[in-house]
Structure formats: structure tokens, C-alpha cells
């Protein structure tokens, strides 16, 4: 039994089945990310004035990642064009590039995550003051056997100073050795830290999972899936197109995530 229009477009609708399927799937993805973006709006609007963090992300890395994904969108398109004109060598080259760019994106993202998760805000006990009531910086040494921790950062007196970092251009960071006896509580800048980071981690992690999923599909087409090319190049080209549509959607999500989480 053969499913009609699995490869060739149906005359009256003008498209083949998988293309209908992927567009419908993308519609549901719009609703998924749309719900997260509306959660972002609702939570941000509900935050008291002056408490929404600014300048907590590395805009340079974010911009770099935006360019990486934009470039991967181009290579994805070129890979599909290469299939259309039946140049399989070019397809391999361009989708190889896509895969490398996807990997680059994930590496940069991982580096950013690591940067947040090793960043600590340490509340000090009263009177232990070295230069402020809060120590804030990246963990250098946190050995449970030793009775102190070392961070590379600074002291501040008010938590408010940590909220908006846009105007604080030259933060001087030094290595600070803090005895554990002086630590009231200590928390890294993970998703539990506040709602901004909760949104940041949830939205970017879900996006990164989409990048990973897309990479697996593209990797399959680039690797073992290429057998189909010899049997039915039309069908293979369709698969490249469908995976490409997904990839462009994932890129588009990032185009919204970047300003919302890094710039605004």
C-alpha cells in the first residue's frame, strides 16, 4: 500500500503530505513558545519597578550566537538548493557546515550556562563585613573540606546594586577569600535565583533542545539517511526541505529570545 502524495504534491493543494505536517507542527510550536513568551510578559509586568535584572548576559556572546544561527539558516537553504539542482557534493558540504554551526551554538550556550552556574551571590553574616554585606562573583574554590571559599568578584552593600549592571561599566573584580563561618547563605545564578533566570534557563534550554533535535535530524540526513538519495532523490530533497523548515523556525525563535533576554 502506498500513501498518496507522500512525495509528489497533490494537484489541488500544491504540496506533499510532509510539508503540510511540518507546517502544522510548527503552528503548534508557535503556541508552545508563544505560551512561554506570554509567561515572560506576565511575570515581567508583575515585577515591582526596578527589580527586573538588566545586563546579566554577555551581549557579545549572544550576538555571536545570533550570527552563528543566521549563518546556519543560509547553509540550510543552500543545502536544499543543492539537492534541488541535484548536486549531492554541495549538499554534503553545506549541511556539514550547518551541523558545525549548530555545535558551535550549543558550545557557546554551554559556556554561558556554566558562567551563570558558577556565579554566586553570597550573603554574609552581620558584622563579618570586609567591604559589604554581599559578596558576588565567580567561584574559584569551593572545597567542602576547607573552611573558606574563594570567589573572583566584589563586595556590595545592597542587593539593588546587582540588579542593573548596564551602567556599571568597570566592575573591578578581585579574588575574595570568605570564611564559611561568615556565610549566611549562598546561591548560584541558576534558574532558582529569580524569575528572570528561571525564564532565561527554561526558554533557552527548550530552544537548545530544539537545536539538538534539529541537529539529530540533519545529522541523520547527512549521514545514514543519505542512502535515500540514490533511490529517490525527490523524496530525499523533500526531507531536506522539511527539516530545513524546522531549522528556520528554531532560528526564528532565537531571533525573539535574543532581544527579550539579552537586550531588553
Amino acid at each position, binding site marked *: *500500500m*502506498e*500513501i*498518496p*502524495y*507522500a512525495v*509528489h504534491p*497533490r*494537484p*489541488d*493543494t500544491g504540496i*506533499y*503530505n*510532509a510539508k*503540510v*505536517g511540518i507546517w*502544522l*507542527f510548527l*503552528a*503548534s*510550536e508557535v*503556541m*508552545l*513558545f*508563544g*505560551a*512561554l513568551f506570554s*509567561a515572560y510578559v*506576565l*511575570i515581567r509586568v*508583575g*515585577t515591582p519597578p526596578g*527589580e527586573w535584572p538588566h545586563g546579566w548576559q554577555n551581549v557579545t556572546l549572544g550576538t555571536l550566537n545570533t550570527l552563528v544561527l543566521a549563518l546556519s539558516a543560509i547553509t540550510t537553504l543552500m543545502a536544499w538548493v543543492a539537492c534541488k539542482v541535484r548536486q549531492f557534493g554541495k549538499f554534503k558540504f553545506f549541511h556539514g557546515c550547518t551541523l558545525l554551526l549548530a555545535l558551535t551554538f550549543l558550545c557557546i550556550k554551554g559556556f554561558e550556562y556554566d558562567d551563570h552556574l558558577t556565579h554566586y551571590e553570597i550573603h554574609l553574616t552581620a558584622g563579618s563585613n570586609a567591604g559589604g554585606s554581599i559578596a558576588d562573583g565567580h567561584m574559584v574554590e569551593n572545597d567542602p573540606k576547607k573552611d573558606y571559599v574563594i570567589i573572583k568578584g566584589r563586595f556590595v552593600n545592597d542587593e539593588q546594586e546587582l540588579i542593573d549592571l548596564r551602567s556599571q561599566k568597570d566592575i573591578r573584580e578581585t579574588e575574595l577569600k570568605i570564611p564559611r563561618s561568615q556565610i549566611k547563605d549562598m546561591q548560584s545564578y*541558576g*534558574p*532558582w*535565583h*529569580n*524569575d528572570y533566570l*528561571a525564564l532565561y*534557563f*527554561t526558554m533557552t534550554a*527548550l530552544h537548545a533542545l530544539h537545536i539538538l533535535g534539529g541537529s539529530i535530524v540533519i545529522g541523520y540526513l547527512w549521514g545514514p539517511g543519505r542512502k535515500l538519495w540514490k533511490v529517490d532523490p525527490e523524496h530525499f530533497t523533500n526531507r531536506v526541505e522539511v527539516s530545513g523548515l524546522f531549522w528556520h523556525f528554531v532560528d526564528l525563535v532565537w531571533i525573539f529570545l535574543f532581544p527579550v533576554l539579552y537586550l531588553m
Partner: protein
Amino acid sequence: METIVHEFPPYREHEAAHEPGAHGHHEDIGFWRKYIFSTDHKIIGIQYGFTALCFMLFGFFLMLMMRWQIAHPGAPIPVLGPLLAKILGQPAAGGVMSPELYNSFGAMHGTIMVFLAIVPLAFAAFGNYVVPLMIGAPDMAFPRVNMASYQAYVLGGLVMLVSFFIPGGAAQAGWTSYSPLATSIPTDGQLFWIIGMILLITSSLLGAVNFIATIIQLRAPGMTWMRLPFFVWAQFVTAFLLLLAFPPLEAAAIMQLMDNVVHTSFFLPTGLAVGGQLAHISGGGSPLLWQHLFWFLGHPEVYVLILPAMGIVCEIIANNTRKPIWGYKSLVYSVLVVGFLSFIVWAHHMYLTGMGTKIATFFQATTMMISIPSVIILTCLFISLWGGSIRFNTPMLFALGFLPMFGIGGLTGLPLGLAPTDIPLHDTYYVIAHFHYVVAPGTIFALFAGIYYWFPKMTGRRMNEFWGRVHFWGSLVFMNLVFMPMFAQGLEGMLRRMSDGGANYSAARVPGVLDTLPNDIMALHTWILWAAVALGVAQIPFIINLFWSMSHGEKVESDNPWGATTLDWQAPTPPPHGNFAEPPQVYRGPYEYSVPGHATDFTPQNEPDRPGTPVFSPAH
């Protein structure tokens, strides 16, 4: 119109090259691939149907035990109590249901009935079996995605079932899982619930994509949009509701998962106290956000439950009145409008949350608007009965039962759609009675009707007519005896979710004074309990009939025992892999019954026009 259809290439062009003349060939693919890991839409439909019926029975037993606890708080449950004590231990010590267990049974009854029983049965089972046949397709557009959809559903169901046996038991925060309650109750059951839901949402999503793509792409030549049977239209709109309404709940589930596991504060407000202690959270979240996201799914979900039922009822009414359905176009446009409006009514579940009167006004307006197309649909179905020579067989009895039952459910919903009347009725048994009238004697009756109606196509045998009638009358009487008293209880102010049925609530007040529940209202608990038991007994003929008729039922005399017009009845019985012997060509609308001058009182959609035959089609 016919000029277009000839451009379509014939089906199975490739296959025809290998096996000239062969149709519906049965390759030996073995038991596992044929019945367990099947990609055939009919097998998957039956898998869905069977699994969903099992879950429905399970959900019914949960409810039965809860009804005992409500009627006899603190008394050991007869028959099932010792079993419960043995399986669950402490929460059911001595066969008595603890309040915590009542809460988890309540939450799981709702979850199982909605997400594991009705939706899979109404949408996935009937949709899978019937839609490709009705549109003249050889299968669904993506057979393997279809299989994955069923597997995700089973997996989600298993996760839900397993959660009963973990320490702390299943989720206890109601089927709505409102935060912060859902995050505060110390059981991992909520985690299982979320993971189960994510799997079920995935399953619905895969199913919805498949249905829409199938209906758009695989309609047989000549099957134009306005020639689609109303059932297909209903499933088409339902699929869009699932496709677009479920993802926001998935997003919400991910956020609640983060709240529970990573200790974020998406839904947890600043200053939240749990057990008298200030919770160790960052705060700043919004409990209202969960409710918005939940009901953004929750309300379209109501239409996911009801639209396929309306589709089934429409097919059966057209078939058994032997005349065209009244107002086919009105039905189609109404179902589209219902689908659209169902996305903008969700906050009528939230009048008591303090979201503001302006927002409430908007949602009251949209809620009143959506009742218009719903009433049009019901009215078309009622008017279709007018002047028909009605055949009162079992499917038709259930379909006819659906009409007034859904009517009661729908009309009692109007006071809940308006904030001034909703506020005193909110969270009372009135609400329970209202939505159960929509879903239980409403949708479930339509599903029974569908099972009796399509059983001959699935098996080549009819279900027993006498026991079918016993099943119908028993169900009709006891359904009403169960749910009608709840309106009275609710109007007297009895709240839902009270594990003792309001005994403490009443005892805490001076008897006879305003606010206590009158004795006769409390006495209705016993009444409802035994009516529910009797309702269970009334299902026994159905269960036996279903299995007995598979091998012993009266054999059908033809492929089209009901004399139906739609393509599903023109396929071989039971339809082979690939469905149709010859690729069907469609010439007419779906409900050409009793066309004057035609030899039979039905004209199948694939019957070619003959010169001199009067043509009636709702599409023209």
C-alpha cells in the same frame, strides 16, 4: 467539478506495477507488527478504543469508591476496601479512604476520564478508524507517526497508573493542578502527573498533525470540502483545537516541572507560606499564570470532548431518519465558529480569581457568543428528525439520548458563563452536574452510539439489539439519577472536593441556620451512590455484548448493513489493509437519503450519476 478530479493520479500507482489487480493484499507480518506495533489506522483506532474503554472503567471505579466515601465518610469501602488496603497500604488502612487518597482519586478521576478515556476514544479511536474510510483514503498520511502517537498515549497512561503506587500516592491537586497547591503537596505524584501529561500532549499533537494532514491531502478524487461528512468536519476542527490549545499547557507543565524539580518560582508568589513556614523560594511568580495557561487548553478541551460526539450523532441521525441532514452548511460553519471562539472563552473559569471585571466582561461576552453556534448545531440535529421515518435501533437511541442530555448540560452552563451567577455557583456540585451532563450522558452516549453503529464495519457482525436497548435505558435512567440531584446539592451550596461530602462543613454550623446543608440534601449522597452502582451494573450488558458479539453476533448481510451513504460503508467488511478494493471516486454530497426517483432510499457518495437521476447535494 468532475473535470478537476481526473487530474488526480490513481492510488497505488507504484504497487499496481508490481501486482496488477491485487488489492488489500495480506502479507504475513506476524502478530507483533500486526496488532501491537501496527501502522494500520484501523488497528490503531481499535487499540485506542480498547485502551480508552479500560481507562474509562478504571476512572469509573475511582469515582465509585469516592461516592462511597462521600455517602459514608470514614466507613470501610465494601468489596473494594480490603483490596485497596492491600494494594495501597496506609492511605487506605482498614479499607477506609483517607482524605489524601480521596484527593488523589479525585484528581486522577478527572485526569483519566478527560485525557485517557474520552479524548482518546472520541478523537483518536473513532477518528482513526472512521476518518480515512470516510474520505476514501488508504490510510492516514503518516502511519508511523500514528503508531508513535498511540505509544506515547500508552506510556503516558502507564506513568499515570504507576503514580498510584509511589510513596505519597498520585497527584492530589485536582485535574487542574493549580499552583502553588500542586507544588506544595509533598508527593512525587505531581511529578508523575506532569510527565504523564507531557507524554499525552505529545500523543495528541502527533495525532492532530496526522488528522489534519490526512483530511487535507488524502481526500478521494471528487471529495470536495463541502462533500465531507459532518463527522470529518468535526474531527478536523477538533484536531486544530488539540494542535493549538495543548502546547500552552505543555509550556505550563514544563514550568511547573521546573518549579517542582529545580525550585524556580514561575507560579509561586513572593511570601508564599507552606505549612506555616515561609517557603524557601525566590518568589515573584504568578499563580494566575498557571490558571490562564491551563484554561487556555482547558476550555478548547471541552470542545475536543464534544465536537467528535456531535459528529457521530450527526452521522447516525442522518442514517436512521433516512433523510438528508438539515442545514449541512450551517453545521459546517457553526463547527468552524465554535472552534475559533473556543480559544477566547477560557477565563470564564476564573471569575473568582480577581483578574478584574473588565477582563471578566470580555469573557462573558465571548462565552455567550459561543453558545450561538453550539445551539445552531443542536437545532440542526433536532430539526433533522422532523418528518423522518425514524429507525429506533440502539445507535439511534443513544444518539437521540445525546440530544436532550447535551441540551441540559449546555443550558445549565449559561449561568456559569456569567460572572454574577457564577460567583455563588463556583466550585459547587452545580458545576459538577453541569459538565458531567455535557460529558457523561452527552459525549459518552454519543460514543456508545458510535460503537454500536460502526461495530458491524469493524467485525462484520452486529451487536445484540436487545441487550443494547437494556444498556441504553439503564444508562439513561441511572445517569440522570446520578447527576440530576447534584444540581439541587449545588444550588444549596454544597462544595466540590470535600472528602466527607460536607458532613464537617454542616456540623460546624448551627443546625437549621443559613449555610448548613439541609438533611435532605445530604441524604441525596446515598441516593447518588446507589444510582452510580446501578449505572455500573447497567454497563455489564454492554461489556458482555461487546465481546460476545465479536464472535457470536449476527453476521451482517452486506458491507453496508445500515444502508448508509458515506464511503466508510462502501469499503469491504472489515476493511483490509489499504481499505478500498478500488480507489473510490466521489460524485455527491454525504447525505443523499431518500432521493426521489432513486431505486434505494440511499445513494452512496461513490455512486456515479446516471442520466435522468435527480441530483441532490448540499454542496450545490
